[in-house]
């Protein structure tokens, strides 16, 4: 969940750039990480260290898991030049569908899970159709979708609250994986942490080698090693914290798998590159053989499935489906993507950025909540944070805004 260099797009070595430009590039690239660290430090202070307690670390992951899942889909939609206002409604709809299937129709939990992801995908496909083939701007389609799917959720579940969901289903949202041993930090969690660190270090070294092979300057090895050490330390510390509380949250596992998978999708596959191309200049992309409509359609189907997954996880975590489930999540997901460096005009952004952005917002909320600030102030602060982050980003990158 850190912006390790490996997840950014391959615009790295810039031979012969000035010191000024080099500094700016560092800020560009690591501003989010710097901001995250800053936020952590500030709130560690104001909460008198509660922020960093093992239990709170675990809470943070679980509390923000579903928003981060949404943020992944959202940043892709935004990179493709669209927006999706309907994710909260689709999450609510899919969560309600899962609960009704399991409780009312006694469908096994995993079938219900799959069906509700399908429902999300269909909802996304519905919207994708209008965006891609009827050429209705995504803002309008998803505004309509937000109303439609919220209405359908209320129609589906009414004022009933469906609770008492099957154990394994609840485990998805609220479960922890561990050896189950009574004393000391959980060894499984620790082991996984070490494995991840080993993976990252290995991969970094391999890609550094490859870059050198192409005759590029690989950058200062001191920075390289320092970066690796910092990232490794952070991950080890995180896994130690989790191990000391209850083990690895299931949500975190889902999140890591999605984060890595979608990062690879966006940076290393044709479809990912086409998403960036469509978002930054649709016409040029079309004339380069990119099937822009398919890309649009894919983005919304994908967002629908991820929204459904988030909805399922919320439902599982609360052990309850309600007609209002997921309300307002679109705003948090959008905020995460923008705080994480995506641009309204499309073409810019990254999965890692969105995750860090979402986590930053999550930590701020968590910190304020521990400090006992009222939710009204939390809202206000969230608004101010989003504004300042994006303004800083714009100022920093000197990006030209197209609209």
């Amino acid at each position, binding site marked *: 969940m850190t912006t390790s260099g490996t997840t950014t797009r391959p615009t790295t070595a810039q031979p012969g750039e000035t010191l000024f430009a080099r500094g700016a590039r560092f800020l560009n690239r690591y501003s989010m990480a710097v901001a995250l660290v800053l936020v952590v430090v500030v709130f560690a202070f104001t*909460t008198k260290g509660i922020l960093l307690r093992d*239990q709170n670390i675990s*809470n943070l992951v679980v509390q923000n898991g579903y928003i981060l899942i949404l943020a992944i889909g959202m940043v892709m939609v935004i990179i493709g030049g669209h927006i999706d206002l309907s994710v909260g409604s689709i999450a609510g709809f899919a969560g309600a569908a899962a609960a009704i299937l399991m409780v009312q129709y006694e469908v096994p939990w995993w079938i219900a899970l799959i069906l509700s992801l399908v429902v999300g995908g269909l909802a996304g496909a519905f919207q994708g159709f209008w965006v891609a083939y009827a050429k209705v701007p995504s803002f309008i389609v998803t505004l309509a979708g937000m109303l439609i799917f919220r209405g359908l959720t*209320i129609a589906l579940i009414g*004022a009933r609250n469906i*609770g008492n969901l099957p154990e394994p289903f609840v485990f998805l949202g609220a479960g922890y994986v561990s050896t189950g041993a009574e004393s000391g930090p959980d060894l499984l969690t620790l082991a996984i942490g070490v494995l991840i660190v080993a993976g990252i270090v290995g991969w970094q070294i391999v890609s550094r080698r490859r870059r050198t092979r192409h005759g590029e300057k690989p950058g200062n090895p001191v920075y390289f090693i320092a970066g690796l050490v910092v990232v490794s330390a952070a991950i080890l510390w995180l896994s130690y914290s989790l191990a000391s509380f209850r083990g690895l949250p299931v949500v975190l596992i889902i999140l890591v798998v999605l984060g890595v998978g979608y990062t690879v999708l966006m940076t290393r596959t044709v479809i990912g590159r086409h998403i960036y191309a469509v978002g930054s200049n649709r016409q040029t992309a079309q004339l380069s053989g990119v099937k822009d409509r398919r890309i649009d359609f894919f983005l919304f189907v994908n967002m629908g499935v991820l929204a459904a997954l988030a909805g399922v996880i919320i439902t599982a975590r*609360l052990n309850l489906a309600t*007609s209002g489930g997921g309300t307002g999540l679109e705003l948090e997901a959008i905020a995460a993507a923008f705080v994480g460096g995506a641009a309204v005009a499309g073409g810019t952004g990254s999965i890692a950025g969105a995750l860090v952005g979402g986590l930053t917002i999550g930590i701020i909320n*968590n910190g304020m909540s521990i400090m006992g600030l009222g*939710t009204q102030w939390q809202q206000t602060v969230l608004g101010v944070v989003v504004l300042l982050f994006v303004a800083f980003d714009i100022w920093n990158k000197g990006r030209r805004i197209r609209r």
Partner: protein
Amino acid sequence: VGLTGCSADDGAGASGGTVGILMPGVQSVRWQIEADTMTKGFEERGYDTAVQFANDDAPTQVQQMEDMITQGVNALIVVAVDVQSLGGPLADAKAADIPILSYTRLLSDTDAVDYYTTFDYKAYGAASGHSILSALGVEDADGNPTGEKGPFSIEIVNGSPTDSVAYDMWAGYEETLQPYVDEGVLTIPSGQSTFDQSSTLNWTGEGAQSRMENIITSTYSDGTKLDAVWVPFDGMTRGVIAALKSSGIQPGTDAWPVLPGGDGELDSIKSILAGEQYSSAWIDVITLANGAVTIVSDVLDGGDWPEPDTTTDNNAIEVPTTLSPVVNVTKDNVQEVLVDSGFYTAQELGL
């Protein structure tokens, strides 16, 4: 449990500990009043409080409870946004030996609840129903049928379809008014008689107002008399009043219907005194809140939970329960119920 780092370190308590108070949201005045009352009460007993309002959003409340447990509160008073959704953090709290008081809304499907002090929302809805019945003379003051055959026309303005509380109140309607509707003593001329047809998204006054205006237009603009509107919440009653007025029906005239409400909000009590609203279902939230303070402080001081009036099944265990009565405030008993108890001052009410 380690009890470091309490949030409220303004020194007032020289603290014996912190009590976490979880409230659903600020859309209704009473939660604020109760939170304030509790904070004051606990301060007097030497405890700090940490209060959170959840914006009527269940996930937010889960998060707030988790954060409070992390923070190390010594006791929890919980008004759930959604009574089933807090199972996870409640289990954590129980594991951490934190006493849990379920306040006004019963936390269900969990064994992690020690005690329940309440009134119930069904009684709330029923109070509104009884108001209508007695005002129309269908029932006498003691709630016995008078044999009055009507027929009287009523309309329904329900709470939000997204909120289970609305359903509880609706149960009160079904208990009190539905039998007379079935008999034909009461009629619903608009035909909008189901919960879904009569619901008001998010309990808003605007929503109640628009819907009422449309009903008046469609059903009562031909001069049909509207005798009563069943509304369980003051905020919506105000919308109904605005709708009636804008349709040219004036308070004080014969055409003005019986309008109940709920929560005893200050402006609505003024409305009752002005003869616009008929009644407001009210529970003495200050007494209820102070009762909660006493119970929890006693437990924190090392005492036991008090003898309950009864127990209530929450789908997991039988929870010890004390009940507070619901009172119907009308013009006649405002002084007695609200002023004498100190809930409002006479000056506030313009008495």
